């Protein structure tokens, strides 16, 4: 452990001198920002939502969940499609856009997780069925999946 010449706290990896090692060889280095996950009033860092569709939303954008943070700036977020219970295709496992019923190059439904300066918005976006492609329209009834959202205190603006 060492305090560097400028300021702060550095903990180096075993075998490295904290006084002069590269940042890649530090465990902890206060010269660098780190993703700081928001902890809510129930001491959770992750917000988990289990969505169950009993109807197929109309063509266009349907807001299916809103999380208010009121930071006044747009934070970094991570979002995961944690689990789904359905035999129908639901791709895009670990990040912010999850595609539903992808056939060839067409996607007919999409779930987006978006951060604004006041909210986290989870939307279902449904595309119109393209004609002449022999495709069947999406049916979300019975689709059941869980999305995890991590909200960080870090500003997404450089």
């Amino acid at each position, binding site marked *: *452990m060492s305090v560097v010449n400028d300021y702060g*706290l550095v*903990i180096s*990896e075993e075998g490295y001198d904290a006084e002069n090692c590269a940042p*890649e060889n*530090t*465990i*902890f*280095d*206060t*010269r*660098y*920002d*780190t*993703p*700081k*996950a928001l*902890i809510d*009033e*129930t*001491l*959770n*860092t*992750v917000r*988990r*939502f*289990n*969505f*169950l*569709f*009993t*109807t197929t939303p109309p063509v266009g954008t349907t807001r299916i*969940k809103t999380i208010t943070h009121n930071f006044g*700036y*747009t934070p*970094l977020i*991570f*979002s*995961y499609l944690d689990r789904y219970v359905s035999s129908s295709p*639901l*791709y*895009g*496992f*670990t*990040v*912010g*856009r999850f595609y539903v019923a992808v056939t060839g190059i067409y996607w007919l439904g999409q779930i*987006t*997780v*978006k*951060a*604004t300066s006041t909210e986290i*918005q989870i939307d*279902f976006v449904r595309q119109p069925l393209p004609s002449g492609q022999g495709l069947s329209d999406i049916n979300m009834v019975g689709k059941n999946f869980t999305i*995890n959202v*991590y909200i960080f*205190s*870090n500003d*997404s603006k*450089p």
Partner: protein
Amino acid sequence: MAEQSNVYGVIASMLGVDAFDAADQDLILSSAFPMLKIESITEVTLSTVYGNSYDLVTHNLGYPPFFLVFERVGGALIHEFFTSLFETTSEKITMFDYVFNSGNPTTKTYVVLICRNPLNKAISTPVFSTQSREAALRDRNYGLITSKPGKSTDSTDMRDFTFHSNARNLLIHAVDYREIVTDPATSGRSMTWVNDLPYRPIFFGYCSIDGGNKYRFLYGGGQAAPNYNQLDNGDVKITDFDDGSGTKHYGSIWVFKDPFTLSASEQVTI
């Protein structure tokens, strides 16, 4: 300092949790568990055409770093991955436009997060304890905080701190970096990080299909290989192709201490 085997260094637990027997995932800091170190957050607006590659950010770190790409849409932020392929070398982050738009340009704004954490460096950390204890609500009068240059430690704006014990800092549990080898069960290659935690941890995955020059952020399972997903037991598996060229492929699976199931799900019926 906690009596966790013969570990030396610093351990700080959440308020209300004894550092001597805190679960690893209830620590806010440990000498045993590295953290992500943000090198830069860069915003780039590009007009791109389907089927072409473009430079996003030049970092010149000398190694392929941990990175994530988001899309800025009307001021908001979406964690991006599908509509383009994002890769890093030891010098820069690039994107390959997969947005089919009949030859017309697509203009997007990307936000690129780069960390001083190499993708091609394996990390293995111990598991001391996974028995989570009940913690008290955070009190900012306790803990460890470091402010950014020119910012006061009395600030109530979390952006003014590089480290703050009132926030959960992602602690790296493992980076599984190695060659992705032939899978005898398939006609391709695969690599599996075997979960040694009693819960499913959060993760990210990257791979190189050109011998370790470029590393791409992986698509989720179900997409064309290489892709990755997490199994029910928490293992993280990369499924890769084998074109018979002999070119080595490498996987870099990042696993954090944080469980997927830390909190109960809120049920939402649509």
